[in-house]
Every structure is written in C-alpha cells, then in structure tokens.
C-alpha cells in the first residue's frame, strides 16, 4: 500500500500542536498553565495553537472561575482523539514502509 504524506493531518504539522494533543490524550482535562508548563511555550504561542485546534474541533474548553480568577480547562473531543490516533497510525506506517 502506498502511504502518502497527505494522510498526515495538517493540524499536526506543528510540534506544539502535536504536544498539546499528546498531553490531552492522557489527561482528562488541563488548564492553560499546566499546558504551558508541560509544553514550555509562551502564552501567545500556546494560545494561537490551541485556537487552531479548537477551530479543527479537536479541542474544546470549559470556562469557570476559581477564586474569582478565570480558569479555562481544555480537553480533547472524540473527533480529536480519532484524528490523533489516525495520525499516530500513519506515522507508524510511514516509518515501517521505509525500513
């Protein structure tokens, strides 16, 4: 079977977006600061990448207030989970096919 690089979802081209998906795959939900800590990204950079994933429908957020401070928790949607798993499978196939 011919595997094309087109099968790799464009949304995962960026390392940070891939990182966000990896982290959310193993955590039910995380707030912005936790994501920032794990990914070692700046506020602006991380926000842009999260927005992109939200537009794709892979990530959603819950806004609430903790001690009067706004707190946004992000979690992966079912669609996001599928896309992430597909992405991993394609990566695996590409690597195997080039052995």
């Amino acid at each position, binding site marked *: 079977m011919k595997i094309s*690089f087109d099968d790799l979802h464009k949304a995962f081209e960026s*390392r940070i977006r*891939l*990182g966000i998906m*990896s*982290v959310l*795959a*193993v*955590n039910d939900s*995380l707030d912005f600061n*936790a994501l920032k*800590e*794990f*990914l070692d990204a700046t506020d602006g950079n991380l926000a842009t990448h999260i927005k992109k994933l939200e537009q794709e429908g892979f990530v959603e957020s819950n806004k609430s207030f903790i001690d009067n401070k706004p707190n946004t928790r992000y979690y992966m949607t079912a669609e996001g989970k599928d896309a992430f798993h597909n992405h*991993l499978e394609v*990566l*695996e196939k*590409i*690597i195997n096919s*080039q052995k």
Partner: protein
Amino acid sequence: MSKKQDHIQDIAEIRSMMERSSKFLSLSGLSGVLAGFYALTGVYLAYSLYGFRPTEIITNKQASDFSEVVVIALLVLILAIGTAVTFSYRRATSKGEKIWNSTSRRLLVNVSVPLVAGAGLALVLFSKGFVGLIPSITLLFYGLALFTGGSFTFNEIKFLGVIQILLGLIAAYFVEYALIFWAVGFGFTHIIYGIYIHIRHKQ
C-alpha cells in the same frame, strides 16, 4: 529521506509528552533510602528502649502503654514524608519543573486514599488492643497505596507495593515476627528500592 527522521522525532516527542504529563518523574530514590533508615531506627528504638514486641494479636495492656511507640511511628512518618518532599522538590526544580503540578497532585490523591484508610483502621485496632495486627495492617495499606501510586510515577513502585502487601500478609500470620517483617518492609526494601530507583533513573 530526511522526512523519516522527522517522524521518528515526532513519535519520540509524543511519547515523552504523554509520559511527562501523566506521571510524576521527579520522585527521589535517595529519599527512599533515608526513609528506610528512619524506619529501622524507629523499630530499633521501639524494640529496645520501650520493649515493644507484640507476640499476640490482642494485648491486654492499655493503649496508653504504647504511647511512646506511637510517637516514634509518627516521627518516622513525618521525617520520611518531609525528606521525600524536599528531595523531590530539589529534583523537580533542577529539571526546571514545578513540584506542585497536575502529576504530583494526582499521585498524592491516589496514594492518600488507601493510606488514610489504613491509618484510620490502624488507630481503631490500636485503641481496641489489637496491637499485634498493626505491623501487618500498615504494611498492607502502604502496599496498596504504592500499587495505586505506581500508575502515576515510576512503574517499579507498583512492584514495591506488591512486596509490601505480601510482607503484610505474612506478618498477619506470624504475629510473633510481625516487627521483623515491618522492619524488612519499611526498612530494608525501602533502602534497596531507593538505591535501585536512584541508579535506574539517575536521581
């Protein structure tokens, strides 16, 4: 194809991200070694200074006769936890991570539930005079706590939990030797395991 290297790198990154965000990996092995020494010292003091040597499950002594032993046990516990927190804190800061994050929080919550349940039962048994069962109960519940906690830190901790559970069961059967099994579980296995974790994970 240079692309292949990129993809392998991607996968390595994904794997490391998944692990780092779901497991607390700054746990210090050396603090385990020290905890083992505290426990051995505690057992020695309780045994030689205060003549704590339960031979029967039920004792007809008053609970207050053992108050020094309870103080020793609490001191050992506080020292061990304090050392673990301090060493892990240093470890985390040297890696540029925070000690209080979602992984350490999750580890703590999951370890606390069996520990608090065990401590509660130990206190009840103690007040009713079932002193001979205390070593086994504390080993059992500590083992359960480690087994659960193992999912949220180094996997090897699960195996340490199983060892403690087995020692706890043996200690319940051979009550005369319970203190020895207690020393083996909280003392020697901690020391050996601490050294192993320290070498294996270079911390």
